[in-house]
């Protein structure tokens, strides 16, 4: 599929008003409800435990798997370990045929989707019924899940009523409670008559041969209680060692998944349990219990790749979807594949469903890092998506993107391009190929934002003219400006210097510095990112300075990443570590060096703060800047709603996916306007550009966006 087709998918998802409403409301209320469900429970401790038991299981899968088989069989189960999805499906078809199964009731099983279970058996003439309400609805619609936990979020009650009317041939009213009753009635018939029940497992315990299934609707219990044959389908990643280990997973799963402390049902089956085989005669026997375990090459590949192995720690709670700003807008039909959705879905899709689809959708990730905060298994989701992006870039270098990144690496060329662009307005027009693919700096070109002026004189030429009056300097700090401060927001760089001067530090600007490499990294271009790291390590000469300051958290973050580009033990690596350790973001450094003081002109100004994704979630700086602002005389500080939600900038993102970026920005602007603030403080020039552009587009003139460094310099009378 071309990126144009993906864009088409994005547009139609954005046009789906139900999706926007339900997903929007859900995602908005989710964080608070989730937090509430964790009252009295230490989430960090729980996810540490989950990581421990899950990674143990991943490391010992070759012991745990045969152990599960043995223990489940000891208790009367039949276990088949399938080496491929085809093999699994073939085995199941055989069982279905041999046992004369005519009808099947299924509770949710994502693994079964990998097998094309429904399609294959339906073609064999078997009646396969999805019984989870959401799954049932999308099966009627002929669609795939839009969300891992809530598959039918994209449909409203009217659409559901129509689907039910078609199916039952009776008029269904668009009343949710009534629709739920219809589902109960229709499904009850099926449960009673079904020959076989199919379940997915949340957890499988090796030491006891127990499988766990969590549901709210009770369909999981029906499937396990009524039919004479019970089939479980799951992958090797569901294994844990002991029964006791399983507990941790069910502490996080309902809380993370649906913000419930516990779901209505958690059922645990160990081997073949009792079932009524003849209801007229009231005969009870052991049921026929099968477990098909997927041990396919895709799963083995996950285990074989050190960077991706942690995917096995995923508990499929869906929390990463619920907090993802991109997912909130487009849902899982776009940001996902037919089986798995969202950020984690991109990774699972890469290994288990279709690497091609994963390549397409990885670009939707903004790299904002929100998913990581809530992830039940503590997965480094954005980092892994980045790895896929890098692989994709390596395999399919996109000529235009690559050109742009090459240009950034060469700062002279880059600045001339920028200047050309600034002078000749023509290339900024929408649809111009050249400019549209330039990385982040020109993202102001797209809808909903105005373009910042490219500075006529870059900061490197301004720097020597700044008079630094520091009589007895406490130390010398090197400033890393990054492209946006060097070429666009030169004033911010100046303010950083004046602020640091005011607390007794001299600032130097090493002239050889180039782009930090963040845009290249963001696009998966490791080669250029490494090149830029080398240039900067040489240029910054960190050994010479007490600290390195940057006023762009994306740059700071990138500088701190430099060691990973070089082999340990090499001189370059050593220098990278030195640079990384000395690099700080402005507000953090200024605060730590004693810059927080009750100073200021005392003139009243109301300030709100937008947290940049990199500063709050990668660098974990959320307090220092607020303290600095609150202590500034005259500043009244107010928080906006969702202050740490992404503004939609995401580096090159707003250029590549303006359709997604624009509505994210809209929300941010709305939250800002709901405060009484005169000024929005930010610490990231990218966010500044994005938010300023959004305010301009709304014609809001009375709210200014300013870097914290600028506010401090202004209020302290330094400029």
């Amino acid at each position, binding site marked *: 599929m071309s990126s144009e087709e993906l864009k088409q998918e994005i547009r139609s998802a954005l046009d789906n008003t139900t999706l926007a409403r339900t997903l929007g409301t859900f995602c908005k209320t989710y964080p608070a409800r989730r937090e509430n469900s964790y009252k009295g429970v230490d989430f960090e401790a729980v996810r540490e435990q989950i990581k421990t038991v899950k990674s143990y299981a991943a490391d010992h899968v070759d012991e745990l798997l045969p152990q599960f088989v043995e223990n489940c069989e000891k208790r009367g189960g039949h276990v088949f370990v399938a080496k491929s999805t085809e093999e699994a499906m073939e085995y199941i078809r055989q069982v279905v045929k041999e046992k004369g199964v005519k009808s099947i009731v299924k509770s949710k099983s994502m693994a079964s989707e990998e097998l094309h279970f429904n399609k294959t058996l339906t073609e064999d003439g078997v009646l396969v019924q999805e019984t989870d309400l959401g799954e049932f609805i999308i099966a009627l619609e002929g669609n795939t899940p839009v969300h891992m936990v809530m598959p039918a979020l994209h449909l409203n009650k009217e659409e559901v009523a129509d689907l039910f009317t078609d199916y039952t041939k009776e008029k269904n009213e668009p009343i949710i409670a009534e629709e739920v009753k219809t589902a109960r009635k229709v499904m009850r018939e099926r449960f009673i008559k079904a020959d076989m029940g199919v379940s997915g497992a949340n957890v499988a315990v090796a030491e006891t041969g127990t499988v766990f299934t969590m549901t709210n609707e*009770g369909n999981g219990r029906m499937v396990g209680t009524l039919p004479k044959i019970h089939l479980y389908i799951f992958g090797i990643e569901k294994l844990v060692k002991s029964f006791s280990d399983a507990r941790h997973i069910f502490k996080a799963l309902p809380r993370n998944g649906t913000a419930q402390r516990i779901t209505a049902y958690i059922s645990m089956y160990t081997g073949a349990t009792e079932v009524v085989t003849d209801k007229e005669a009231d005969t009870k026997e052991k049921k026929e219990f099968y477990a098909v375990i997927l041990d396919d090459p895709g799963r083995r590949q996950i285990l074989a790749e050190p960077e991706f192995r942690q995917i096995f720690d995923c508990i499929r709670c869906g929390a990463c979807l619920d907090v993802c700003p991109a997912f909130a807008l487009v849902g899982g039909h776009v940001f996902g594949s037919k089986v798995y959705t969202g950020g984690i879905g991109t990774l699972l899709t890469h290994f288990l469903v279709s690497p091609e689809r994963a390549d397409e959708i990885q670009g939707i990730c903004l790299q904002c890092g929100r998913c990581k905060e809530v992830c039940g298994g503590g997965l480094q989701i954005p980092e892994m998506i980045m790895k896929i992006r890098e692989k994709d870039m390596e395999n399919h270098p996109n000529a235009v993107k690559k050109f742009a990144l090459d240009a950034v690496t060469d700062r002279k060329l880059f600045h001339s391009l920028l200047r050309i662009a600034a002078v000749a307005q023509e290339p900024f027009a929408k649809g111009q190929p050249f400019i549209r693919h330039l990385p982040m700096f020109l993202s102001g070109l797209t809808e909903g934002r105005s373009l910042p002026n490219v500075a006529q004189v870059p900061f490197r030429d301004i720097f020597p003219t700044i008079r630094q009056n520091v009589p007895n300097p406490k130390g010398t700090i090197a400033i890393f400006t990054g492209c946006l401060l060097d070429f666009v927001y030169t004033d911010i760089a100046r303010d950083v210097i004046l602020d640091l001067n005011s607390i007794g530090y001299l600032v130097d600007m090493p002239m050889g510095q180039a782009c930090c490499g963040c845009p290249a990294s963001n696009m998966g271009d490791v080669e250029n990112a490494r090149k830029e790291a080398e240039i900067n390590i040489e240029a910054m000469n960190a050994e010479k300075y007490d600290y390195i300051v940057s006023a762009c958290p994306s740059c700071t973050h990138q500088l701190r990443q430099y060691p990973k580009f070089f082999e340990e033990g090499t001189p370059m690596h050593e220098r990278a570590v030195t640079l990384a350790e000395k690099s700080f973001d402005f507000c953090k450094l200024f605060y730590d060096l004693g810059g927080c003081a009750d100073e200021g002109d005392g003139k009243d100004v109301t300030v709100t703060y937008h947290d940049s994704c990199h500063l709050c979630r990668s660098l974990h700086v959320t307090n220092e800047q607020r303290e600095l602002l609150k202590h500034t005389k005259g500043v009244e500080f107010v928080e906006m709603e969702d202050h740490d939600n992404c503004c939609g900038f995401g580096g090159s993102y707003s250029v590549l996916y303006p359709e997604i970026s624009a509505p994210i920005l809209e929300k941010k602007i709305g939250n800002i306007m709901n405060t009484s603030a005169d000024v929005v403080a930010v610490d990231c020039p990218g966010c500044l550009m994005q938010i300023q552009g959004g305010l301009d587009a709304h014609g809001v003139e009375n709210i200014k966006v300013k870097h914290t460094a600028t506010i401090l310099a202004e209020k302290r009378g330094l400029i």
Partner: protein
Amino acid sequence: MNKITDELYERFKTNLESVNGTCVRASKADLGKAVAGIFTEAGIPDACVVETPLMKEGGVIEALESAGIRVCTDHIRLNAETVKGGVSENQYGIADLGTLVQGRDVIDERIVATMSEYYIGIVKGSTIVPEYDDMFDLLSALPEIPGFVGFISGPSRTADIECVSTVGVHGPLRLAAVVVDDE
């Protein structure tokens, strides 16, 4: 095991109520009356009952019958298709979550707890543990995990249509726990 404390009972009750269940406490002698009272009030005409010694002692079946409720004690699988009420005993409870725990492989007990419209779960107060972790400790320490263990926390529910939380899908629409004071 010790008799349930008032504090633990209140905790169980509050948490069960927070997931749309209801809860009453009864002495052994009053068990039948308590069960019959719940069904009478809800207008349940008939019930599948899986009797246990505790329920026998508490006179559950007699109490239901004398309240005019038709009781089925066999062919549960067949009867549960039409009968509205279901009564069975649970092996444990978790106070912190308002959870009833079925901890043995008796199919009729699973059927009544799953298929009925109104399910009453009886549980001995002494078997209610304070926390979720206690339950896992207890189960893990058993010489053998029972073939079936089921946690039940309130009636069945869904939020699959427009994220609107609705009670009662495939499982019971209503659920009550009766906590029996035992020594």
